[in-house]
């Protein structure tokens, strides 16, 4: 079970990225599956080629920044619908990731990675490593909280909330969207780089269905900790990510087939999305429902 908590904390980095697009930017970004693998692939291939694991991990994150930027450009400059823009980048990345790895996977056996010191000290799967990964997630959370409360961060928040309004105050929403997508996918790819090192390999299919895990984490977290402000919301995302991994672990221990996990995750997300709409279960209006009911004066198209 400590393993599940560890995984949950590492995947929380990805979930924070998903939170940034889905909740803050109101942009359902499907680039995630591809950018996660891109991060893992880039870091793994660099490590195998003798690059310092810190630099390799940073390069992995940078790959995600680029992927997010491309989705952002497709959507804003190309006028492509958000879902499609994300899918296009994701599919394109499949080929690119194969190129990066020069094959379908890169083993990291006996390579010096960021995880090696932990493994050598035999702290993996103990409270020590949980603390270390928790600290990592927390640092990223705090930086994200700070960023979203800067002038630029407020502009990004408002871009997801009321784009016409924020444009009328002089913000180029193309730029804020591209920036948000880049940062989000940077986090996702950073997570991919960490996971590749944690599991000891990068693999072309490591990102498949990941968006569902990210969404499930965000939704689960917000179900247990109703977010009112960013600081709470990002904490909820981390909690949700851990909860999600623990739930999967329990399902496996109960004897469910690992191959069924994607279906279980999908059903979980559907339930989390649908249940709150049934009146019996409807709770106090969440911030989200306020946003939905907030009609925005139509303007001459999104620029």
């Amino acid at each position, binding site marked *: 079970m400590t393993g599940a908590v560890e995984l949950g904390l590492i995947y929380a980095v990805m979930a924070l990225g998903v939170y940034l697009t889905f909740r803050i930017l109101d942009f359902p970004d499907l680039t995630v599956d591809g950018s996660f693998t891109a991060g893992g692939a880039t870091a793994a291939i660099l490590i195998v080629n003798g690059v310092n694991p810190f630099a390799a991990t940073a390069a992995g994150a940078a790959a995600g920044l680029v992927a997010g930027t491309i989705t952002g450009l497709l959507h804003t400059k190309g006028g492509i619908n958000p879902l499609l823009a994300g899918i296009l980048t994701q599919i394109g990345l499949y080929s690119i990731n194969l190129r990066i790895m020069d094959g379908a996977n890169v083993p990291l056996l006996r390579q010096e990675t960021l995880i090696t010191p932990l493994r050598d000290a035999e702290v993996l799967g103990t409270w020590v490593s949980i603390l270390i990964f928790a600290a990592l997630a927390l640092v990223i959370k705090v930086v994200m909280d700070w*960023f979203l*409360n*800067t*002038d*630029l*961060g*407020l*502009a990004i*928040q*408002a871009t997801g*909330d*009321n784009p*016409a*309004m*924020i*444009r*009328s*105050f*002089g*913000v*180029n*929403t193309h730029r804020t969207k591209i920036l948000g997508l880049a940062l989000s996918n940077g986090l996702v790819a950073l997570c991919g780089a960490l996971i590749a090192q944690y599991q000891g390999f990068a693999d072309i299919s490591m990102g498949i269905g990941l968006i569902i895990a990210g969404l499930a984490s965000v939704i689960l977290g917000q179900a247990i900790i109703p977010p*009112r*402000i960013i600081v709470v919301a990002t904490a909820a995302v981390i909690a949700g990510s851990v909860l999600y991994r623990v739930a999967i672990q329990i399902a496996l221990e109960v004897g469910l087939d690992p191959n069924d996990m994607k279906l279980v995750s999908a059903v979980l997300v559907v339930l989390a999305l649908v249940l709150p709409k049934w009146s019996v279960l409807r709770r106090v209006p969440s*911030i*989200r429902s*306020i*946003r939905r*009911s*907030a*009609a*925005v*004066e139509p*303007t*001459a198209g999104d*620029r």
Partner: protein
Amino acid sequence: MLDLTSVSKTFFPGTVNERRALTDVSLSLAPAEFTTVIGSNGAGKSTLLNLVAGSLTPDSGSIVIDGSVVTRLPDHRRAAYIGRVFQDPMAGTAPTMTIEENLAIALSRGRSRGLRLGVTRSKREFFQAELASLELGLEDRLKTVVGLLSGGQRQALSLLMATFSEPRILLLDEHTAALDPSRAELVTRLTADAVERHHLTTLMVTHNMEQALRLGTRLIMMHEGRIVVDVAGEQKQRATVADLLGAFEKVKGAGFDDRTLLQ
């Protein structure tokens, strides 16, 4: 301050849905001139404001604000000059963000936004003082999410956000229409105060003729994409609702090729 020269705008040109929204409109506003705009539905009032704000670009003609040609600048690049309040109280604020965050966004109007904290202690004090002037008790609710405010409160906040960073031009599009009479009265009073205090060059669309006559220093009436009545100063002071209705009937009878001025 604001000069529109022969501005025209047609929606969906060359299709069955073609709509001529504005035809050859010229309008020049002096600094601090407060102009009310009336006219029937579809007359082109909102289109006029959208062109000034840059939400729409004209098919022909030019728009100059304070000496700079802005005809083709997108809305976000004109924002430094223009404050705006819409009819829909939801349109002018970010609903999931707090009052102080909305105000911080508005305060940085038209400036580049970097990595400085959006809401600081000194800004908070300034916000409290400004909110107190609305007399709605919002100064004690800085951390309230704007989506929880009533329509009137949101509209008063939108007005504050549009004006307190001192744009050159204020555009108001039926901004009191969705409010109950007492709230509408409050927002109208706040509008007059803000325009006076910041010397804003203002275009205010309203369907309330009495309001259009009472407020401002100039009045224009639009019909089928043209300005058909334009009165200012004493002439406006003397005009009555009956005069406006009379002028409107005359214009309607004459068809839109005739430019009739109120005598």
